[in-house]
């Protein structure tokens, strides 16, 4: 993110910036991070931001919250290739690109209502990544293949 783009939304003192979110998905990011139910968190959202790499993109800035690995994996599901920047005292302490692991565990449920993973509480829903673009995953148990829309509706 260039300095100029950063300034579109005010710089944050401490927190997480999620950049290069595919356009239209910023609100999905807020939803899966359950931010709307946490009034203690200040969030800035920029949508339809011009981007050299993507044409248009969305950006989300979350103040005073550092995302954990489960949250990052969820973000990878809907914004593979997104850039995460961790900010402390107005300076970047860590910056990386989110990547989907080959095996995805515990962050979404199978969309097949008859799948055994939706019936037995001992099971951690597990999926194999088939393709990143277009996003496609396969349930380890029932072998149902799921694509983007279904995946988004199934994130825990």
């Amino acid at each position, binding site marked *: 993110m260039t300095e100029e783009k950063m300034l579109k939304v005010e710089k944050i003192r401490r927190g997480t910036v999620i950049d290069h979110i595919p356009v239209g998905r910023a609100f999905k990011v807020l939803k899966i991070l359950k931010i709307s139910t946490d009034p203690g968190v200040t969030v800035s959202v920029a949508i339809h931001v011009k981007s050299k790499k993507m044409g248009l993109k969305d950006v989300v800035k979350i103040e005073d919250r550092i995302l954990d690995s489960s949250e990052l994996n969820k973000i990878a599901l809907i914004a593979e290739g997104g850039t995460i920047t961790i900010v402390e005292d107005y300076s970047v302490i860590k910056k990386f690109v989110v990547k989907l692991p080959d095996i995805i565990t515990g962050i979404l449920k199978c969309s097949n209502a008859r799948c*055994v*993973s939706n*019936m037995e509480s001992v099971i951690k829903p597990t999926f194999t990544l088939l393709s990143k673009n277009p996003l496609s995953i396969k349930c380890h148990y*029932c*072998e149902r293949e799921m694509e983007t829309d279904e995946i988004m509706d199934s994130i825990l």
Partner: protein
Amino acid sequence: MWLNRDIVSIGDLSVEEIMEVLDRANKMLPYASSGHPRKPLADKIVATLFYEPSTRTRLSFESAAMRLGARVLSLGSLEASSVAKGETLSDTIRIINSYSDAIVLRHPSEGAARLASEYADVPVINAGDGAGQHPTQTLLDMFTIWKELGQINGKSIGFVGDLKYGRTVHSLSKALSLFDVSLYFISPEELKIPKHIKRDIEKRIPVKETKNLDEVIESLDVLYVTRIQKERFPDIEEYKKVAGVYVIRPSLLSRGRKNLIVMHPLPRVDEIPAEIDNLPQAKYFKQASNGIPVRMAILDMILGSE
């Protein structure tokens, strides 16, 4: 490596492994009706755990196990068992695990056999999990094609009927697509093969989709017929119209290739009238009986008599 291996999904087997099973099934054929003289599984116990009724599949597995000399433990009625008391599948499997050397599982939830295989130390054979996998059905279908036509490569296989919900069609067409075959999907618009399955198969082999069986009958070596279920149609008149189109008549078969075979996973309703049964093309009863040598082969391979 077959010893103690779970047989959960046909997708877990390579072409070479499928051929190994078919080859072993062929060797079992002479013993499928009289029993194996050596009783190779005499010291083994096979548990059949059926959470939904499927008498034929259960009897076929139990017969196959007994033909090899194994003893069979069968889950009694569901009402009387701990399943009715609400025990989870994973708990039941952990218990049955210590009673037997292999577990044959039929369950209404998709993926149940995969789950069971993770909780059992003994091998688990999937005998059907809901609308999911039923690998021994797929293997006996492949065995029938291989045995009747001499090989699988080079053949044209046509699936007709309900291709949308029929899991036998999904598994078999995926497994066949690992071979050098052509597939024809013949169905009414409402019951077409799911797009994701067709897309996957098309990556490997030629596929043709049509509503018209007449148009392709001459190109087929195998006609695999499935039942069109009334429940799939909101309107009974619509069902009758559609189902009527795909009834197999002798006049249709007479236009087919000389060695054409007709298969069906059974039970059938009206789609294959009894007048077809005595024609040389009719192989569906043979196909059903092939369940025994195929299941014998699998039990023998995973329980390691050799």
